[in-house]
């Protein structure tokens, strides 16, 4: 063995190299404050390792990026852990960079003869930020997609070359396959290579000049093992924090050792859907906040000019540091910059906390992400991509269809279907828009029908329509007092069975039968029968064959009934000529849209939260 080592040393000189590496002199002895560079190098190694393994399973295209990340996270063994490590290590690199930079500035290690190493360090910082930025887009989820749009738009406002640069970076006029292939090529190819090359030069120059030790160092030691042990323990600390973040930080549930933990994955990106929760990753929040102070065409100052001036000042630190009070200026400037970053970041977080639309956007995004994953689990992902699962999903599309087509007149539990109030601009001011038709939340459920029978003229039902004082309202006023509670409950239970909802409370067959009797023949006390105005095809209910003035209630509130009612309320089986203002939606919506809307109304009314048609 020793002969083999001798042979290898003779051919490569590895012993000398090893000696040089581990026996670096450290005047003043080992220090904890020297550990940041090593921690950073270790974190980068974690990124290289986890990045390589993720690369073996990631597929960069608009139809496969989210899908492959979903598969990594939820199906591959320890995929969530590897991805989580990669995600949190990228953030750790930003933190460690800031600490390393601070330590270098405080120690004055940017001053001659270390100017070049300072510039190399700054270059490393930009490469790391570039890696973070390009990596954020790769899952192609809503968060990364919309946040990166902001970044590329900022590049687009660079004077003269901006639009061309943006076009080149995006790989075309809009985000698509080539945006991903380009970002991935930067993220996994160019930037890591640059980082390794700069890091090698950085470490080589660091070795050339040695550590920046105190002015009068007491004693001297070597890197191995004194400083090495401190560095190793610091790296261990970093790793433990990373693992902690992976198992505790990724979920609201606390400790999770499984796919629900690790890095989050939002719903697949969809350019046709707005995303009010779009924000950059926390370490770019300061820039996002900063831009708010530069409206309109002044944005270029906030996004380009001022950051470039700041970077220019950092570049000039080695020269500024030589001046009298120069070092104090550089230290002060660094602290001022970091304080500014901290202040802006906190301001952004505070403003978001008070922003209802943002908070709702976050909640909606989380719900959509859970739904996307639920659908991918249960149905598998088609080759057109997971976004199609959501586009075909009633629970995802229904609220928007209701908002866009129904909420001008109707409400859903007082809102527009998506959870927002319906407003209009009157006299130049935003004001709540009063409903002019019934509130359809819970339509077909026993509670809804029961309340309706007791008071059809209520604002929630016919109160804002032509039917407010119609025959149904009159019937209710005159006949409900003649019905016992049991008879009302029986009619309600009977009508509820028509909706064919799977989750209605199991009906008492005797009560339902009694309901059918009351519907057909009226109550004991002489209440007028429902069948005098309504028809309902049922074996226990005789059909007179005469034309009746009110809607047919066969399968009342079922999907088929809703389809008929919504497509053509003027059909004789529904309101016929008595229809108020309800349009024929067969002329406004496609059959697919109608189906999505109806499936959602039906499922939501019956609280079927994980419903699939």
């Amino acid at each position, binding site marked *: 063995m020793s002969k083999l080592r001798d042979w290898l040393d003779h051919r490569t000189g590895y012993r000398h190299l090893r000696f040089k590496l581990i026996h670096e002199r450290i005047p003043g002895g080992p220090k904890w404050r020297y550990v940041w560079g090593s921690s950073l190098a*270790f974190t980068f*190694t*974690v990124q290289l*390792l*986890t990045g*390589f*393994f993720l690369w*073996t*399973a990631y597929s960069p295209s608009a139809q*496969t990026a989210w*899908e*492959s990340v*979903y*598969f*990594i996270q939820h*199906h*591959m*063994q*320890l*995929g969530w*852990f*590897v991805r989580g*490590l990669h995600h949190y290590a990228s953030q750790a690199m930003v933190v460690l960079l800031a600490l390393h930079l601070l330590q270098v500035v405080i120690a004055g290690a940017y001053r001659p003869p270390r100017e070049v190493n300072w510039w190399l360090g700054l270059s490393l910082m930009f490469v790391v930020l570039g890696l973070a930025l390009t990596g954020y887009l790769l899952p192609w989820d809503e968060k990364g997609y919309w946040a990166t749009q902001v970044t590329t738009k900022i590049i687009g406002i660079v004077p003269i070359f901006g639009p061309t640069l943006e076009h080149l970076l995006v790989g075309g006029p809009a985000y698509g396959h080539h945006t991903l292939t380009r970002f991935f090529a930067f993220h996994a190819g160019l930037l890591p290579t640059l980082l390794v090359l700069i890091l090698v030069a950085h470490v080589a120059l660091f070795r050339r000049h040695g550590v920046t030790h105190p002015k009068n160092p007491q004693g001297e030691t070597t890197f*191995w*093992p*004194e400083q*090495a*042990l401190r560095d*190793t*323990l610091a*790296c*261990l600390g970093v*790793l433990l924090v990373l*693992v902690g973040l992976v198992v505790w930080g990724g979920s609201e549930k606390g400790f999770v050792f499984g796919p629900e933990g690790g890095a989050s994955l939002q719903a697949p990106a969809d350019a046709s859907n707005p995303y009010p929760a779009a924000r950059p990753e926390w370490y770019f929040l300061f820039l996002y906040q900063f831009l708010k102070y530069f409206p309109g065409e002044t944005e270029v100052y906030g996004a380009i000019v001022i950051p470039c001036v700041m970077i220019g000042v950092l570049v000039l630190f080695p020269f500024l540091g030589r001046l009298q009070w120069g070092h104090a200026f550089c230290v002060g400037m660094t602290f001022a910059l970091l304080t500014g970053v901290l202040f802006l970041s906190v301001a952004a977080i505070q403003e978001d906390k008070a922003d209802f639309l943002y908070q709702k956007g976050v909640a909606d995004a989380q719900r959509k992400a859970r739904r996307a994953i639920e659908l*991918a689990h249960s*149905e*598998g*992902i*088609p*080759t057109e991509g997971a976004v199609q699962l959501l586009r075909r999903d009633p629970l995802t599309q229904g609220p928007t269809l209701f908002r866009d087509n129904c909420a001008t007149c109707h409400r859903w539990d007082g809102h527009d279907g998506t959870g927002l109030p319906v407003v209009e601009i009157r006299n130049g001011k935003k004001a709540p828009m009063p409903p002019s038709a019934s509130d359809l939340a819970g339509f077909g459920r026993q509670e809804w029908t029961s309340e309706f029978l007791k008071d059809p003229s209520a604002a929630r039902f016919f109160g804002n329509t032509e039917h407010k004082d119609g025959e149904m309202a009159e019937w209710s006023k005159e006949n409900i007092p003649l019905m016992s509670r049991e008879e009302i409950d029986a009619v309600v239970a009977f009508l509820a069975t028509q909706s064919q909802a799977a989750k209605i409370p199991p009906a008492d067959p005797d009560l339902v039968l009694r309901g059918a009797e009351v519907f057909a023949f009226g109550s004991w006390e002489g209440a007028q029968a429902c069948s005098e105005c309504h028809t309902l095809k049922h074996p226990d209910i005789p059909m007179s064959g005469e034309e009746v003035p009110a809607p047919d209630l066969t399968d009342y509130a079922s999907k088929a009934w809703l389809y008929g009612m919504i497509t053509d309320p003027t059909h004789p089986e529904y309101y016929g000529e008595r229809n108020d203002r309800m349009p024929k939606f067969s002329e406004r919506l496609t059959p697919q849209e109608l189906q999505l809307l109806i499936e959602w109304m039906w499922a939501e009314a019956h609280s079927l939260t994980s419903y699939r048609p």
Partner: protein
Amino acid sequence: MERRGFFRKLACGLIGAGLILVPFGAGVIFFLDALRRGSRERGFVRVAWVDSLPVGIPRSFTITGTRTDAWNTDANVPIGAVYLLRHEQEVEAFQVICPHAGCFVEYDPNSRQFLCPCHDSSFNLDGSIANPGSPSARGLDKLEVKVQGTDVLVRYQEFQQGIREKIAVS
């Protein structure tokens, strides 16, 4: 002092190894995930009408089924192909993949043999190796086939290539 230095070096080595082992080990386990993903057992699928098959002349047919490829699940898509050869009383089915190195074999009506374009293997109509210098270790893989009424049904499978034994891999 000597002992203290030794333990420091030992601690450095052990912790350092652990530091790399966590991301690397997790990555290796992640990479080995592919070994967990076996193919699923397929039943018989209808491939052709028996009366559409000429007697004595093999014809290739596409097999459709549900394909699961990592995250994608697609129903009714092409998953492979087979040669069907009708005899007077029965129908035989052969896998179109050459058992040597996986190329798609073609039927040559002149020689009445299956020819592999990659390494010049040739196979007789009963699937046996035709050329003595064939690099293939076995003949064409026969598939289970049955005729139900007018339908020809095949149990589609793929087999490990390059070995003498016929071992199903899907």
